[in-house]
Each structure stands twice: as structure tokens, then as C-alpha cells.
């Protein structure tokens, strides 16, 4: 790579500027050695990822500390204050039954994030448990798990989700189970592929010759080397599940309407009159969903760049 003294006339890029700064600091004897892992530093150097982290943190905090931020109850019906436009009293206005929308967005965030993050973590646990072991052991167990995941993954996800919703019925727990069931395949394949390449490493051979049991080798010694991509996968599937929950609830087929979630708030926007005259009901919450998913995606991308040097474009 070219340093600052490289004699060309090409334009200086951001990388050059960064390199100059590092040199300047080194010359001034300020450069710190060690301290913090390389991946963390790389992540913090990625502007989009840091932006994502900040937005993510703000929305999570606002949802968790919702009672401190708004005096309203998200389910309290106030028939005298129906369909009020945003004001100092109601920041996001009120909906058709006079419920305060700011409170609903905050409290709804709790459920939407719970569904997204919860299902992603559950799916990751199942996918990793199966993928790490079968990927290491191979044989018929591996072939069986692969076939099963192929069957799950050949369904377009939303079709499978809706099919299961129609069979199992709508509830918060069912939705999380369904997301887990339909989402484990991706992370399973990733974990398995990682294991297939790790299996050839010499330290695995060494462990095996020490006589360690297979689960011990797979889970204790090989799994930590696959944690980077697993974290990336969890973030990206959180984003996907939040989008799906919003879509399903928008259609009225996700979380039951009595529980406020981001998708359920948007549900009324199917009505053309609401769409036309009451923009405050659907616009702010749509922006919040988009911002949140965007921030999670940025974090996922940043994590990938930070943990996996081969994936950079």
C-alpha cells in the first residue's frame, strides 16, 4: 500500500489521511500499543457502524425506560382525545381510540425488539448446537441435518411463517417459536461450513490425539473460533425478524392486536382514510422501524468487516 510519500498525482483518499494521522501520532510518541482488541478498534473506526450503535442504543433505552419518558399508558383509551395531531401534550398524536402514540411506539418497541432479538438468539442457539456438532462429526447425522435444513429453507420464509401461523394460531410465543423454527437453517449452515474448514486445523488433530471427547472438541475448542460470523448472523437475522414481525402485524396476522407492537400500530394504515388524513399514526412509527432495522444492519455489517477480513469489499 502507498504511504504519504508515494510520488503520484492521484487524489488522496480517506485511507491516506488516516495513515498520516497515525504516523503523526507515532512520531509524537503518543501511539498506544495494545489496549483493546483489533476487532473492536476496527468496528469503532467504521462510521456507519458507530452511527448504528448509537441509534440502536437510543431506541433500546427509550423502550426500556418508557415509563420515565412518557406519562401515558399505551393501552389507555381516551374517547375525548381521538385522532389528535401531534402537539406538546401528545408528541406523536393519538390514534382512533385516543391512545397516545408516543407511548405506544415506546412500549411497542419492547415487544418488537423482544420478538426480533429473542427469535434470532433462539434460532442461533439451535442452529449452532446442531451445526457445530454435526459439522465436526460428519457422517449420517450431518447428512440428515443438512436435508432437514434444506427442506426448511426451500420454503419462501414468509409463506412458511404464514402457514404455521394459520395452523398454530396467533400469539406472541407462537410467533417467536415460528420465527425460530423458520430461521435456524441459515445460521446452522454457516456454523457447519465454518466447522468443516476448522476440522482440518492441526490443533483439532492434536486435541483428538489427546483423546478429548467429540462434543468437548466441537463446543469448547472449535466453537469460539466461529463466534465472529455467528454474532454477525444474529444481528442480521434480528433485523430480518423485526421486519417480518412488522409485516405480519401490519397484515393483522402477527402478534395479537391487543399487544402494542410496531407492526400493530401500523395495522390501521390499511385503511385509506387513515393513510390520507392521519399521517401521524403511521409515519413516525414507520420511520422508527426503519431506523432501528437500519441501525442493526449497519452494526451487522460493521461486525462482519471487523471480524472477517476476507469479506471486505
Amino acid at each position: 500500500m502507498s504511504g504519504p510519500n508515494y510520488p503520484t498525482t492521484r487524489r488522496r483518499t480517506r485511507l491516506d489521511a488516516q495513515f498520516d494521522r497515525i504516523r503523526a501520532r507515532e512520531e509524537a510518541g503518543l501511539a498506544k500499543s495494545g489496549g483493546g482488541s483489533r476487532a473492536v478498534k476496527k468496528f469503532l473506526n467504521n462510521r456507519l457502524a458507530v452511527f448504528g450503535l448509537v441509534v440502536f442504543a437510543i431506541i433500546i433505552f427509550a423502550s426500556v425506560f418508557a415509563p420515565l419518558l412518557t406519562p401515558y399508558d399505551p393501552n389507555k383509551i381516551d374517547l375525548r382525545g381521538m385522532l389528535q395531531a401531534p402537539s406538546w401534550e401528545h408528541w406523536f398524536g393519538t390514534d382512533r381510540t385516543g391512545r397516545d402514540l408516543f407511548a405506544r411506539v415506546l412500549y411497542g418497541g419492547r415487544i418488537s425488539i423482544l420478538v426480533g432479538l429473542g427469535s434470532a438468539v433462539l434460532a442461533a442457539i439451535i442452529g449452532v448446537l446442531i451445526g457445530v456438532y454435526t459439522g465436526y462429526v460428519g457422517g449420517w447425522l450431518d447428512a440428515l441435518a443438512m436435508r432437514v435444513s434444506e427442506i426448511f429453507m426451500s420454503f419462501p420464509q414468509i409463506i412458511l411463517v404464514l402457514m404455521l401461523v394459520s395452523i398454530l394460531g396467533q400469539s406472541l410465543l407462537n410467533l417467536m417459536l415460528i420465527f425460530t423454527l423458520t430461521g435456524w437453517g441459515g445460521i446452522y449452515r454457516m456454523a457447519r461450513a465454518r466447522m468443516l474448514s476448522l476440522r482440518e486445523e492441526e490443533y483439532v488433530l492434536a486435541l483428538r490425539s489427546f483423546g478429548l471427547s467429540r462434543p468437548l472438541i466441537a463446543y469448547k475448542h472449535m466453537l469460539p473460533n466461529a463466534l465472529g460470523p455467528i454474532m454477525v448472523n444474529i444481528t442480521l437475522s434480528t433485523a430480518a425478524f423485526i421486519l417480518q414481525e412488522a409485516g405480519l402485524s401490519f397484515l393483522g396476522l402477527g402478534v395479537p392486536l391487543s399487544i402494542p407492537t410496531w407492526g400493530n400500530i401500523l395495522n390501521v394504515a390499511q385503511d385509506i382514510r387513515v393513510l390520507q388524513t392521519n399521517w401521524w399514526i403511521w409515519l413516525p412509527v414507520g420511520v422508527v422501524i426503519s431506523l432501528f432495522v437500519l441501525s442493526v444492519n449497519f452494526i451487522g455489517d460493521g461486525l462482519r468487516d471487523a471480524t472477517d477480513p476476507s469479506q471486505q469489499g
Partner: protein
Amino acid sequence: MLTYIIRRVLILIPMAFVICFLVYLGLELTPGDAVSHMINPDAAGSMNPAQLEALRQSLGLGQPFHVRFWSWFTNLLQGNFGYSMSGGVPIANIIATRLPATLELAAVALVFSTVIGSLLGVVSALKRGSKTDSALTVIGMLGVSIPEFFFGLVAISIFALNLGWFPVGGRSMPGYLTLWDRLPHMVMPAMVLSIMLTAGVMRYARSSMLDALSRDFIKTARSKGLPEWRVNLLHGFRVALTPVVVLIGFRLPVLIGGSVIIEQVFQWPGIGNEFISAVRSQDYPVVMTIALLSVMAVLVASLIVDILTAVIDPRVRLGE
């Protein structure tokens, strides 16, 4: 080549069979059977239980599970998908009337996203590290982060309700059936459906183009003294585009998933719309059949993709 194709098909057949079996199992586990679809519950209550039982027997419902599965399966192969629970319409008819609308939308979205997505991706790769590149990356990220239906709502609100450029929804006005008349109806749903696909194609095209540009033959072309645009377009772009075209097959699930929601937002009378109303009314035979058909479409698409990849890249079929 032929042995490769045969091998791929042989892998596919048992899988398709297992999926059919699972779907049938789901159908059996859900409440209601063919008799309850044929006779409305009020009439069934007043009927003699023995009569109902006789009807069940005559329809073959008393037979063991594997016999029923087999007759369902052979019917399926002949294109006889059974009957809808609401109205008893043959499901094959429902699909035949709904499918063209869905295909129309999907085709437009597919062409649009492929052209625009690969163009933007290539531009992004050629200007790697520039402001244009980062702007396109962020736009692509927005495209996959904003819920599709929210795009739809914003589009309806701006272009249909406020500006009045396009109709709010539906596929045509009553009595106006030519393609020209229907075009304004198609614009918004097709564009919204394209957004997520375009973002995906763009990302893929960018990395594929970067990969192509780093190859040795590009250096050779440059050192021959070819003008930069020729190097990029004739050597880089051509190589980068093949995987992008193959990608079309992999986008089918995204397309099906997207059209389910988009058809609902724009009241587009396609399969996705039918699927949602079947899920709402718990019309299990319709739900299962549409799900089954979508899986089969995905499987066939992936088979075609595999074959195409093998045609393009000999390493695929010789490997393993």
C-alpha cells in the same frame, strides 16, 4: 453435463416428495376434512350421523393414512389440487385466475431490479471508495431496512392520494382491460416490489465486479493499452454479470415473499392476496396448496440455476 443434470434431478425428487408428505401431514392435522368443506356446519348438524359417515366412506376418508396420502399425491400430479373450504371452488381454478396477475408483477420487478441493480452495482465498484460508492452503499442499506409495506404506504400517500398520478390499488378499472389501461395500476406495486430486490442485486453486482476487476486478465487488458472503458465494460462487466444473472433464481423466494405483502398493500388480485385471505379464514387446503406450489417453484428455480452455473463454469460439474 447430462449426468450432472440427472444427478441434480435425482436429488430433487425425494426432497420434493418429502415436502409433499409434510404438507399433507399438516393438512391432516388441521381441523376439518373434505366433508366439512362440502356441507356447511348448520346442515351437517341436522344430518343423520350415519349419513355423514357413509359420505366419508364414499369419499375414501375412512381409508388408512397412506392410502389417502397416495390418492392425494397422485391427484396433485395430475393438477387436481382439491377444493377450497369457502365456496368449494377447485383450487386449480383459483390459481389459474390469480397467477397471471402475480407473474405480471414479478416479471416487471425482476427485469427492473436486474437492470438497475447491476448498473448501480457496477458503478459503485468502478468508483470504489468514492463518495458515490458510499452513498450507493447507504442507499442500498436503506432499501433492505425499510419495510416494503411502509414503502408502499408512503408511495400511495404521495403519488396516489396527494398527487393523484396513479390509482390507489387494484389491477384495472372495470371495463378497461388492455395493457395500456392497466399500466398506471402496475407502476407503484412493481416499483415497490423492486426496491428490496434492487438493493440485493446491487450489493451482489458490486462485489462480483470488484472480484472480476482484480483478476489477471484485466491487468493484461490494461497493459495491452486498451482504453479504460473497454477494459471495464467488455472485460470486467461481462465476467461480473454472469453470476448476477444466475442470481435471479435465488431471488425467487424474496420475490414471492415480497409479493405476498405488496399485493395486500395495493389490493393486487394475485396469488399472494389469495394466500393472505386463505390464512385469515383458515382455509387450509388453499394455504397448503399455495405453499406447496411456491416451494416447488423455488426448487425448480434452484435446479435451473445449478444447471446454468454448471454450463457457465465447468469446475462445478467436474468437482465434488
